[in-house]
């Protein structure tokens, strides 16, 4: 494998419910953190390399709300952005990409219908297909995949699922540790490292960021290509610039 020099990416994540940004603390208690377009613009100015929107709207007209949101974001934000949550068909995805998103994430739908990954990769290209994996540590070792926002165990090994998703045409893996999510105790380096080693495609580490060192660890020891964080950035406890300046100081290539 030839070594390349792409910049390590810092990705703020915005959880969106009915067009508003919220953040789940361990996926349960939700706190309002503002307007998605305003947040997106703020992150764009602060130097975010990408944005991720996860739609957690349960209503049936959520597709329309999301498409409108994507359109508003695309009009004002000039960095790549990813949209996920509840996307179930090639047509759902087409509408989101047409509205201006660059990538989409598949989670529950990909586990239920793995062929959706291939269909999307063939129709739109692997570069826009991100498979999101929510994983929780098993008492007996290894990690188990969960769906439905972390509520349902599917009895599948996270590493095997990541490898399978890559084979089906996924362009990236967004890997969330449910054990670490919301704790601010650091990313699950062991999980991130295990998945990064098992696949060739970029892995985005998610869940657990609390301080600058955590980002560094995920990008080095964890082997991640990108790091994602939500509440830490939303509430201004740490800025993207602070994270980047720290990483640059420690010799990592950042934009």
């Amino acid at each position, binding site marked *: 494998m030839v070594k390349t*020099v792409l910049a390590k990416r810092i990705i703020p994540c915005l959880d969106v419910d009915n067009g508003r940004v919220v953040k789940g603390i361990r996926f349960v208690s939700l706190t309002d953190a503002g307007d998605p377009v305003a947040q997106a613009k703020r992150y764009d100015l602060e130097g975010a390399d990408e944005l991720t929107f996860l739609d957690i709207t349960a209503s049936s007209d959520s597709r329309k709300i999301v498409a409108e949101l994507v359109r508003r974001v*695309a009009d004002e934000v000039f960095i790549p952005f990813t949209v996920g949550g509840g996307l179930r068909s090639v047509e759902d995805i087409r509408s989101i990409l047409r509205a201006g998103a660059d990538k989409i994430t598949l989670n529950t739908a990909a586990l239920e219908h793995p062929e959706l990954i291939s269909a999307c990769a063939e129709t739109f*290209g692997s*570069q826009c297909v991100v498979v999101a994996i929510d994983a929780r540590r098993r008492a007996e070792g290894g990690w188990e995949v969960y769906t439905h926002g972390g509520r349902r165990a599917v009895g599948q090994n996270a590493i095997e699922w990541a490898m399978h998703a890559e084979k089906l045409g996924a*362009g*990236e893996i967004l890997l969330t540790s449910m054990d670490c999510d919301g704790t601010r105790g650091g990313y699950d380096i062991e999980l991130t490292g295990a998945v990064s080693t098992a696949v060739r495609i970029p892995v985005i580490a998610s869940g657990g960021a609390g301080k600058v060192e955590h980002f560094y660890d995920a990008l080095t020891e964890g082997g991640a290509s990108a790091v994602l964080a939500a509440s830490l950035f939303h509430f201004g406890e740490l800025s993207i610039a602070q994270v980047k300046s720290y990483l640059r100081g420690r010799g990592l290539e950042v934009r």
Partner: protein
Amino acid sequence: MKVAIIDYGVGNLRSVEKAFAATGCEAIVSGDERELRVAERLVLPGVGAFGACMKALTERGFDRLVYERAREGTPLLGVCVGMQLLFEESDEFGSTRGLGLLKGRVRKFSNALVVPQVGWNRIHQTRPHALFEGVADGAFCYFVHSFYCEPRDETVIAGETEYGGRYASVVAEKNICGVQFHPEKSQAVGLRMLKNFETRINTDFYSDQR
């Protein structure tokens, strides 16, 4: 109307249009031949497969239109696959012909690399150029591609990017420019380059003689 972004049925052109708007430029997305014939500047976008893009362009007769307007001296900016279309031929699926406005081929990245290249990479300026006005050497831009341009005449190269070796990521010959990255997704650097295309690339009669 100043800038027309050529709509030939591929990809989402809204982001490009909005990026021009953010620089204060009057740009429209158009698939109307009359509009494209009178636009002061043309942007040729492109995503996905080279062959499919070329086919869509040809079906609308826009291959000739772009070629003729570029030869007349209209400033033209090819973006991503739109840059690749400026060249003579692509290796994709055997061989597919391009517009032939610039000499050279389009090749696939080595299998030893992660392909497509997706992410932020640096533009190393190999010579001064109006497109780079106000852009730092080595600035990061956002790339998504599996093929790259290999100009036969190296003097058309203005910027290079490192991905398992250096390749041409910005080309320019008189009024004809191409960028392999997505300026509309490359934040301030990308917007500045769009602005430079709009204000600094001159209508300069194209000549085959170099």
